[in-house]
């Protein structure tokens, strides 16, 4: 879609870790609003909070390796009018501190910004303990929580700035490895909106995070197969943009979802729920299918677990066949 100002995928595409965009966005948000503060659980460089810490040391709190404290100190900061971004690896926050987030942020209606980096199997050699796959499900089930999974570093930057202005608890999911930059500085981002990145009429591919680039590659391959795939990028998994998604599915009649996490409770789960109640259609979900990851190189793992354009393309053919 021309008005989305996407990058030209046919040119040499640059890649950057999505978390880098968070670091820049937090710094920018901090410059715009003195109430933006940050806290980290001993991963300040990894989560890219270091930019903010260097500029605003008096607005940064080093919590140490204590994620329960991270979330609840955040709730205390928010109670006093601060806009706290609290970061760690997703496996630990929101992995370890879910109840604290539930009670002191969500039920308590304190707008803590939970930032979980190193999500997905693309964390690579660190292995299953550190490859967070259940975070989307954990956060999506909580009332009042907003769940944001940006598709590249530029979108993460815009999402972070939007989060600073959002009065609700938010979860921002980040990835470790370099991800192709598919948007530009002009590409829109609004919390709660899904975007049609590639128009088509034969199948809807709904993707989030690192998998949106793979979905766009799959759409190119499908075009060569004579299939016009519509790619819907869903950077906000909750609240879900039901209008944009259902409009696409009513047109195409079949769906593939793609995410780098568990499909149970994840984007795949969310789309299955939406379709079942509103517009049942053939659906194939690409993602982690109720198992853990393991050590390996990121690309090796993504291929092994079927998290790539090739598998999205096969799934598209599968659901198109089921339409007939």
């Amino acid at each position, binding site marked *: 879609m021309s008005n989305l100002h996407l990058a030209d995928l046919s040119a040499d595409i640059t890649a950057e870790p999505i978390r880098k965009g968070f670091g820049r966005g937090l710094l920018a948000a901090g410059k715009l609003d003195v109430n933006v503060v940050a806290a980290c659980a001993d991963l300040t460089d990894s989560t890219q909070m270091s930019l903010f810490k260097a500029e605003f040391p008096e*607005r940064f709190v080093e919590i140490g390796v*204590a994620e*329960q404290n991270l979330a609840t100190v955040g709730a205390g900061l928010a*109670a006093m009018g601060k806009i706290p971004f609290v970061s760690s690896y997703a496996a630990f926050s929101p992995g370890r501190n879910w109840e604290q987030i539930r009670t*002191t942020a969500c039920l308590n209606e304190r707008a803590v910004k939970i930032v979980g980096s190193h999500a997905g199997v693309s964390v690579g050699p660190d292995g299953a303990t550190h490859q967070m796959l259940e975070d989307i499900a954990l956060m999506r089930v909580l009332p009042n929580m907003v769940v944001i999974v940006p598709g590249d570093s530029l979108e993460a930057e815009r999402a972070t700035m939007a989060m600073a202005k959002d009065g609700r608890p938010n979860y921002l999911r980040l990835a470790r490895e370099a991800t192709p930059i598919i948007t530009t500085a002009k590409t829109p981002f609004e919390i709660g909106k899904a975007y049609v990145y590639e128009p088509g009429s034969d199948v809807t591919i709904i993707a989030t995070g690192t998998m949106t680039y793979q979905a766009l590659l799959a759409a190119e391959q499908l075009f060569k197969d004579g299939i016009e795939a519509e790619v819907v990028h869903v950077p906000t998994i909750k609240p879900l943009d039901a209008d944009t998604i259902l409009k696409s599915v009513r047109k195409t009649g079949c769906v593939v979802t793609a995410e780098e996490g568990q499909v149970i409770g994840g984007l795949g789960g969310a789309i299955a729920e939406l379709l079942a109640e509103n517009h049942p259609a053939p659906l194939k979900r690409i993602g982690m299918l109720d198992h853990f990851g393991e050590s390996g190189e990121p690309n090796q793992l993504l291929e092994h677990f079927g998290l790539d354009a090739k598998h999205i393309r096969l799934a598209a053919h599968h659901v198109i066949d089921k339409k007939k």
Partner: protein
Amino acid sequence: MKKQPIARLETIANDIRKDIIKMLEHAGSGHSAGPLGLADIFTALYFDVLKHDPKNPDWADRDILLLSNGHCVPVRYAAMAHAGYFPVKELLTLRKFGSRLQGHPERTRLPGMETTSGPLGCGLSQACGMALAMRMDKQTHRWVYVVMGDGELNEGNIWEAAMLGGKYRLNNVIGIIDRNNIQIDGPTEDVMPLENLKGKWESFGWHVLEVNGNDIEAVIDACAMAKTIAEKPVMIIAHTIPGKGVDFMESDFHWHGMPPDHEQAKKALHELRTLGGKIRGEHE
């Protein structure tokens, strides 16, 4: 709030205890021992120590009081009602459908309730977060008080916050531990020993005061002393008698999570009305 004589505060504490019994009997569920034991501390806080305004609960210069062990909230509800936050008669809606007085406190339902609590171990960290925000905003005229149970100290989250408070020397945090020695499964030292409790907090960088938590004047004095400690956060270990004021509940851990039935409530109210037989009951 105008300072009141200790004898007057003791009368208020007794009224709060009577309301706790009535509320719990009416609700048919809830915790008896903790709230009764905390009545003197909450009287001291709401009627002397805290800078607050019941008619303006969000007053920007107020002190903050967090109740970390949310199951003891009946004592806070009763103290708030007597302080003028809401009508005393509303206390009987405790735990009822549609009530602002939820079984465990919810901030968004009741003005003046500073946070939502129930799951244990989260209050001290929130107090530390609030104190950090106050420091960033150069607010040196406000204090954050946080009441915790002793059984609650089993939670790891507490000790994460203890480290943080010590590290940042959060001198506007005043913790109060309700050291009543009981928790649901039995005496604290059997369930999970806490001693040496004073030494634990001191080694985490806190200034520790010990006080008889059922002596209103001593609690007031301890809070005043705590505010003078500039270099560290302060933890007040307040030794209380669980079930205080009701003879058959005192120091019996079975009353931790149990409400009185009608006959027990009658007996308890009689004892509170007569101050344990020292005076004649009002209806005798």
